[in-house]
């Protein structure tokens, strides 16, 4: 009996290995496949889904093999790539979060712009079909594609329909403007709900998104798209007004500050807060953990501001192509085949089917109109109401303006922390909203000037 099992096992092993052996010569006509190093910063389960795309690409053709490596969080991946470049061992592709865009763009010789790569390799990707706020975030001021857009999200409002019902609010008519949000929050509080609203990502959602939606600048020079000499404009009238409202609402118990970055993410799925402004990517977690009826709505705006609402901006990450090291010369230290492999991988990632599946599996928005269509035709949005709110919000108000295209500031990781620190000081009542935004301007400008000085010569 045992012998029979062993024999069967041996046969099974043979059955698996035999085709592989037979395929091996065919798989690499010119020798071994060209290896492309790819560093990413997505933890599980997202990282596994990304690596699945990579292995599908490897299986789809024999000439290139992309090797994905998880390098820790986005900041850790960024530091790793920077260090690798300095020691001439940079990966071909690195995934970089959106706030690192300004730093990467100023890196000059360290990166190879995607449009240059595509021209050189003759590979074509239809960027015109990409959602404008997605492609725009990663383009130069004159519209050339600098990095490859991939996982993108935006911020939306999630609301608890059960709580809305309890407070006598219409669960199918979520508030659209901040005035309506305030009125709803008061009713929710009167109904005994301890946390009417909260926000994740305070700097990204309450500052960057708010300014973009109202078509107001975060910084001069089109939010930094036109040059390193941009100056912060956080203490503009709208931002101070909104900050003042948040502080006031917090004092009255209508708003709860839940911490920096994603720290407040848990407050909505746990059923604690009635309204939450969060990344559209939080959807998956609410589906898994939320034991109540809930809905998705677009971010609110001030109804009395002319030109509002416009499109929101994206978060997430894009793929950057890197030269091997500082002394790699004109070829970037790579062979033509390697460049070609990178371009082919990008073309594979950009296909509507791959993108649509990624969108449905992860909750990130589709980056192309074609993948949005594919998903719609498959009946996904009919089965998952609210999953299309983020996309509609990105397309709201037509073409993106200088203020709603995105943010292109060097050292922006640090600036985001500064904004959150000054907001916290205002919430602690240590300073007024006006003082907080002015302090943030002053401190962020110092970062910008420092970055300008460090990069002025590298960019030339």
């Amino acid at each position, binding site marked *: 009996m045992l012998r029979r099992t062993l024999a069967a096992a041996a046969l099974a092993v043979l059955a698996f290995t035999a085709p592989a052996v037979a395929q091996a010569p065919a798989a690499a006509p010119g020798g071994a496949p060209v290896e492309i190093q790819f560093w990413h910063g997505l933890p599980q389960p997202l990282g596994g889904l990304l690596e699945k795309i990579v292995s599908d690409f490897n299986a789809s053709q024999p000439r290139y093999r992309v090797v994905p490596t998880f390098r820790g969080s986005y*900041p850790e991946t960024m530091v790793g790539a*920077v260090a690798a470049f*300095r020691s001439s061992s940079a990966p071909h592709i690195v995934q970089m979060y959106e706030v690192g865009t300004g730093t990467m763009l100023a890196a000059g010789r360290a990166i190879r712009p995607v449009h240059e790569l595509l021209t050189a390799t003759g590979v074509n990707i239809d960027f015109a079909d990409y959602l404008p706020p997605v492609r725009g975030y990663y383009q130069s001021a004159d519209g050339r594609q600098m990095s490859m857009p991939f996982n993108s999200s935006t911020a939306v409002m999630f609301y608890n329909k059960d709580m809305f019902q309890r407070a006598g609010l219409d669960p199918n008519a979520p508030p659209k403007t901040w005035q309506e949000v305030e009125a709803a929050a008061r009713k929710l509080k009167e109904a005994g709900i301890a946390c009417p609203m909260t926000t994740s990502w305070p700097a990204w959602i309450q500052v960057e998104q708010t300014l973009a939606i109202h078509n107001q600048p975060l910084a001069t020079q089109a939010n930094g798209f036109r040059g390193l000499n941009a100056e912060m404009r956080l203490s503009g009238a709208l931002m101070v007004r909104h900050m003042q409202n948040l502080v006031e609402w917090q004092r009255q118990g209508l708003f709860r500050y*839940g911490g920096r970055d994603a*720290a407040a993410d848990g407050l909505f799925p746990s059923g604690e807060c009635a309204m939450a402004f969060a990344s559209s990517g939080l959807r998956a977690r609410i589906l898994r953990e939320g034991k109540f009826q809930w809905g998705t709505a677009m971010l609110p705006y001030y109804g009395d501001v002319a030109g509002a609402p416009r499109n929101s901006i994206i978060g997430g990450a894009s793929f950057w192509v890197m030269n091997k090291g500082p002394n790699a010369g004109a070829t970037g230290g790579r062979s033509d085949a390697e460049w070609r492999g990178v371009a082919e991988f990008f073309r594979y990632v950009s296909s509507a089917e791959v993108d649509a599946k990624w969108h449905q599996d992860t909750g990130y928005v589709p980056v192309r109109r074609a993948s949005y269509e594919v998903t719609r035709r498959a009946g996904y949005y009919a089965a998952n109401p609210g999953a299309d709110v983020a996309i509609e919000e990105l397309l709201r108000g037509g073409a993106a303006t200088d203020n709603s295209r995105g943010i292109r500031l060097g050292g922006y990781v*640090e600036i985001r922390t500064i904004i959150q*620190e000054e907001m916290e000081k205002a919430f*602690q009542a*240590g300073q007024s909203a006006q003082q907080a935004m002015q302090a943030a301007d002053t401190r962020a400008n110092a970062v910008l000037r420092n970055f300008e000085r*460090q990069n002025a010569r590298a960019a030339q």
Partner: protein
Amino acid sequence: MDRKVIFKGRALPALLLLPQLAVTLVFFIWPAAMAVWQSLLQQDAFGLSTEFVGLENFADVVADPAWRGAAANTAVFASSVAMLALGVALFLAVQADKAIRGQRFYRTMLIWPYAVAPAISAVLWLFLFHPNIGLIGRALNAAGVMWDYQLNGGQAMLLVVIASAWKQVSYNFIFFLAGLQSIPKSVLEAAAIDGARPLRRFWTVVFPLLSPTTFFLLVVNLVYAFFDTFGVIHALTKGGPGKATETLIYKVYVDGVDNLNLGSSAAQSVLLMVFVIALTVVQFRFIERRVHY
């Protein structure tokens, strides 16, 4: 019985020293030298444009109100951690040194926290004191105490001090216990016969005899609070709210790793290095002179 080993020739001793020297050179001297060099430069993250600026980074760092704030935080933080960890450990050691039932069990349990990694201990404290998900945090809020360390700087500082000190208590406990056990019983008995009560015996006999241990531990605790508490702060508050719990070592990390401002980060770490060297010199001088175990 002083026996010295005499080597014939120089090759063998040099060879035997080599591995240790190599490790020190590669993992300590060289990185430290790089940090000193980097602190004199202004450089973009990718190292493509470099400008030698002399001591400008140091001047910027010292003039930066954020750095001064971090220095003040560090002073408050380090002294609080050291006082709390030493005080609690001394109290526990004195209690555990008495003849009580289950002595071994208590000692083991008190030493245990030392084996917990800083980040894990921080998560444990987070589950206790988080205003929304923490056991004690929720209870405090339910009892009407406005507990939210994410917005209240004082509470945040209190939390990181407690979490950091908790870990160090075990270490101090071991040394205090050893110190207590090495005090001759005859001295204590003589004091008792002279009519000194327990408290008086402690302050006039035990505590002075423990002073070498206390001083050694004070230095170790200060160094711990300066350099080994990164994990606790990173996991609990990330230096916030505002900059209320940003210590010098945490600022080095934020400026170097998150903000990629290498020159400033290197200058800050060089300043820290100078501080540690000074602390070590003081410690050795003092101990050389005063301590007779």
